[in-house]
């Protein structure tokens, strides 16, 4: 039985709506963990308000943030999956249907960068990237709408044969630049190496990794621990009014490249907006 256009369209819509009206379970757990150790009174108040906001959104089925973001989907196609129809179009139509039907309606955030005109549609939107998963019999859809609050602080710089200290120092410069403005506690995704585009891609993949998971590479795991400690020593805290927890996690990916080394850094704000599903050949859907 193939994965159909209709199913991909429906799941695209469902994932977007869920990402706007709820917060991923791993992130709720990270908020509770933060509250258990935070010592700054204002930060504790902010963390408590965050939990209250999640609870209220669940009760009222409303949007957690008014910024519904730029629609972005990552699609991973299993090499054993059978597809019927145009997946790209199914995702675009799923988002289109969401815009027509979601209650409450979402704001017109999609912006033409040349004219600054805003609407619910635009060139190349929804932004979709594709990848393959060897031997899998499913399609994985990851919906991660990116809002302005955290989206504007992502950065990328290219170094020449950088020492590790230079790379880590640059990550810290990005944190310093964002300061109080990206709705912390944040998740930080770092991509090192490859090429300009590849570093950004793997930084984004790092960002999407579930919170609380250990990086399988011990070298990167140590680097993540070191950077998280450094980020939390900045004292920026929840919502930037001071505190012990500025980031829930720093996730790092790398790829081999040439002597020029791009380093990409991106952020997710405290709601850590991303929802995923796998659609299998037999028609079953697993959300996570």
């Amino acid at each position: 039985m193939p994965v159909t256009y209709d199913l991909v369209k429906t799941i695209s819509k469902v994932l977007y709506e869920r990402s706007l009206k709820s917060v991923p379970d791993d992130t709720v757990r990270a908020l509770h963990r933060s509250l258990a150790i935070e010592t700054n009174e204002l930060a504790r108040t902010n963390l408590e308000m965050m939990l209250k906001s999640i609870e209220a959104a669940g009760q009222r089925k409303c949007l957690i943030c008014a910024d519904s973001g730029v629609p972005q989907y990552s699609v991973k196609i299993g090499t054993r999956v059978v597809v019927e129809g145009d997946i790209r179009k199914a995702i675009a139509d799923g988002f289109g249907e969401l815009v027509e039907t979601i209650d409450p309606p979402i704001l017109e955030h999609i912006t033409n960068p040349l004219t600054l005109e805003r609407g619910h549609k635009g060139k190349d939107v929804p932004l979709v990237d594709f990848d393959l998963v060897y031997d899998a019999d499913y399609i994985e859809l990851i919906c991660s709408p990116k809002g302005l609050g955290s989206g504007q602080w992502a950065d990328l710089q290219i170094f020449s044969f950088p020492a590790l200290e230079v790379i880590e120092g640059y990550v810290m410069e990005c944190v310093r630049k964002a300061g109080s403005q990206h709705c912390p506690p944040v998740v930080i995704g770092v991509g090192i190496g490859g090429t300009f585009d590849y570093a950004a891609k793997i930084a984004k993949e790092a960002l999407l990794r579930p919170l609380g998971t250990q990086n399988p590479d011990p070298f990167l795991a140590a680097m993540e621990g070191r950077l998280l400690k450094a980020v939390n020593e900045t004292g920026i805290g929840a919502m930037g009014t001071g505190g012990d927890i500025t980031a829930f996690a720093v996730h790092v990916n790398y790829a081999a490249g040439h002597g020029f080394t791009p380093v990409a850094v991106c952020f997710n704000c405290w709601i850590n907006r991303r929802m995923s599903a796998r659609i299998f050949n037999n028609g079953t859907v697993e959300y996570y």
Partner: protein
Amino acid sequence: MDEGYTIECPLTEDRARKLKLGDMVYLNGEIIITAGLSSFKRIIDFAESGKSLPVDLNNAALLHLVNYNRRTAEGKPEVLYLNPTTSTRFNQHMPSIIRMFRLRAVGGKGGLDMECARAMKETGCVYLSFLGAGSPFLSSSIREVISVDWNDLVTTYRLVRLRVEGLGPAIVSIDSHGNSIYENVRLGLEERFPHIIDSLCAAGTKGKK
């Protein structure tokens, strides 16, 4: 969590000056909200050319809150939800606006810079920090949509006058005496930053294979 207290908007200068850094407040009364760079530019253009604004901003609470507004079937304005946006985007325009209209409260999330704080000290104005992604509880405070102006602009850029009850909690993050929690956090970060980088480098060198 601190219980906080309620303040009536628009604030008097005396009341604004008595608000302390770190206080948690809930807003009752009238506020004006908008969240677009083009809205702030237009406010300044109007004021500088002597054109009257569709709402009275004098002594007002002008907040950087995004909102979804529309007309009901009967033609009445309604606001479905609201949420703070990053105020620092408006750093450039806020000092003029704060001084021109002697604003008593501004707010949003992420703070404003010290140039804005200086303008606020002059006029008697505070910055209120709302929770980013706090829309579910912030939106429930809307009691009346008094007016929506500049309908040629997209919904978030319009000038919206609301009557609210219990909007908050909000934290007084810049007071009317030149003190700013954001600046304190920034200065603390700047002081610690060289040490943080040194420790990071030392730890990284140790961890090298």
